[in-house]
């Protein structure tokens, strides 16, 4: 079986968000970048588990990004990928990125493509669905559980107001979230081994961009907290009712 896991580079979850160049660029100075948590904790780890259950499995990684993505790709290889692709572009358009992933996928005929449910920077939740449509594959979004029996997958996903258990045959695309797997830490053997694993860099194929980010804004600062003495909880309820008018 061949699995492709899509991985992104994102700012650390504690990063302070600021912008430069007249609010058109994310201020990267001093920011630590990480593997997007959904890609790492859920998509990649579940794929590694599948490989552990069937050692004949080939596990590829793909990142669409610049050379500054290489450290996070090496980390993913240290966790357990066999080989990685990086398509060398810094595009921020979902369709353009999905087109690059679909191109690599077409060349390699994967049985299974995993993505995280979204990146914690752009929050688009759209790459998985776009890749599925480009490859004419079924798509399971927001999966919380995935099991495989031969070529039949049983997947639990979140839907409006509950969850659904689906059965679908390979090949398919799955976007992964909490529940799929537990976070792992790469061990020394993995880190050493990752240095020599193939990381193939290619230039992007021609594709359209549908959207472009014009500028960023930060939310307005809060006016400051109004503290209510602990022995006057009814005063809080009065303020919520009469001042904030929230109920």
């Amino acid at each position, binding site marked *: 079986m061949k699995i492709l896991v899509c991985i992104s580079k994102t700012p650390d*979850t*504690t990063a302070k*968000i600021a*912008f430069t160049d007249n609010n058109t660029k994310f201020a990267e100075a001093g920011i630590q970048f990480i593997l997007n*948590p*959904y890609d790492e*904790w859920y998509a990649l780890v579940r794929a590694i588990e599948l490989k552990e259950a069937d050692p004949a499995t080939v596990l590829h990684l793909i990142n669409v990004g610049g050379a500054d993505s290489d450290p996070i790709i090496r980390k993913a290889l240290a966790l357990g990928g066999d080989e990685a692709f990086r398509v060398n572009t810094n595009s921020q358009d*979902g*369709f353009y990125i999905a087109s690059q992933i679909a191109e690599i996928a077409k060349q390699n005929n994967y049985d299974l493509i995993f993505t995280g449910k979204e990146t*914690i*920077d*752009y*929050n*688009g*939740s*759209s*790459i998985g*669905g776009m890749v599925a*449509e*480009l490859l004419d594959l079924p*798509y399971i*979004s*927001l999966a*919380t559980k995935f099991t495989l029996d031969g070529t039949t997958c049983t997947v639990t*996903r*979140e*839907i*409006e*107001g509950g*969850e*659904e*258990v*689906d*059965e*679908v045959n390979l090949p398919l695309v799955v976007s992964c979230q*909490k529940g799929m797997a537990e976070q792992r830490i790469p061990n020394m053997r993995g880190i050493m081994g990752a240095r020599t694993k193939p990381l193939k860099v290619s230039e992007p194929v021609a594709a359209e961009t*549908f*959207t*472009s*980010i014009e500028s*960023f*804004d*930060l*939310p307005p600062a*809060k*006016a400051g*907290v*109004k*503290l*209510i003495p602990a022995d006057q*909880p*009814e005063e*809080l*309820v*009065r*303020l*919520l009712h009469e001042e*904030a008018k*929230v*109920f």
Partner: protein
Amino acid sequence: MVLIFLDQSEGKIKKSSFEAASYGAQVAENLGTSAAGIVLGTVNEELADMGKYGLKKVYTVNNEALNNYDDEAYTHVIAEAVKNIDAKVIIFSNNFNGKGIAPRLSVRLKAGLVSGAIALPDLSNGFVVKKNVFSGKAFANVSIKTDIKIISLNANAYKAKEGEGTAEVEALTVEIPQARVKVKEVNKVVGEVPLAEAEIVVSGGRGLKGPENWGIVTDLAKALGAATACSRPVSDSDWRPHHEHVGQTGLAIAPNLYIAIGISGAIQHLAGVNRSKTIVVINKDPEAPFFKAADYGIVGDAFEVVPKITEAVKKLKGI
């Protein structure tokens, strides 16, 4: 024409769809066109009433094969409808179903998608939609450059506007493709307020010390008609189910009122809740970072303070 996907669950149109309909109607007015809704599957409601939210028309595709969500079938039907009625803007709710359908439809129609929109498109210079980025810590203004445009709207970002009006209901016949995903089981949570849509959320953190103490959270939630939520350590410790986890790696929510009890307010937690209109923090540590992001705060012991708040709410509401 602006087409709004109206989500239904168990035959009922969802609250988030009233918001999407009102939003879509306003987008249509700003563009000088009209708004229509589309409902897939069997619905037991009077769809003409969607006119109250500004829709001139509601298209229905009343086929049992559409009662269960299937992103391929839904995409196919919506794409056909878009072509039939020449829709130029399509609106989804940015919820679980919207996240499944909108990206597929974007590729199928070669239509640019902005997901997680929080405001009406700015038409002064093209078609620019403000969306959440960095998990609620910032906004991006995204220009859609394609002829057809897709927006998926965040819950509680645009208030549903209920007025007068009746929509014309028209049934469409669309052939449904054979499903590749077989639905084996559907488990809907009944009787609880869905967290993503809730207007009031009461949330508990590690400060509550254990799952056996959650009664004070659920009692207050019940009195307020609120949904319950929790911080990541709480769901990681299995004190509460994973779907209640709000924060950067959990659900991002934007209720009118968020009450945080015993949550210190780590930056990852704030990212998931900082779009709430009013934030109340109850914590015994006056240095808890959450107070900086709060509108109202009580420094005190949650086990003493919260039951008193619940009593005061009940008294006010006469329950």
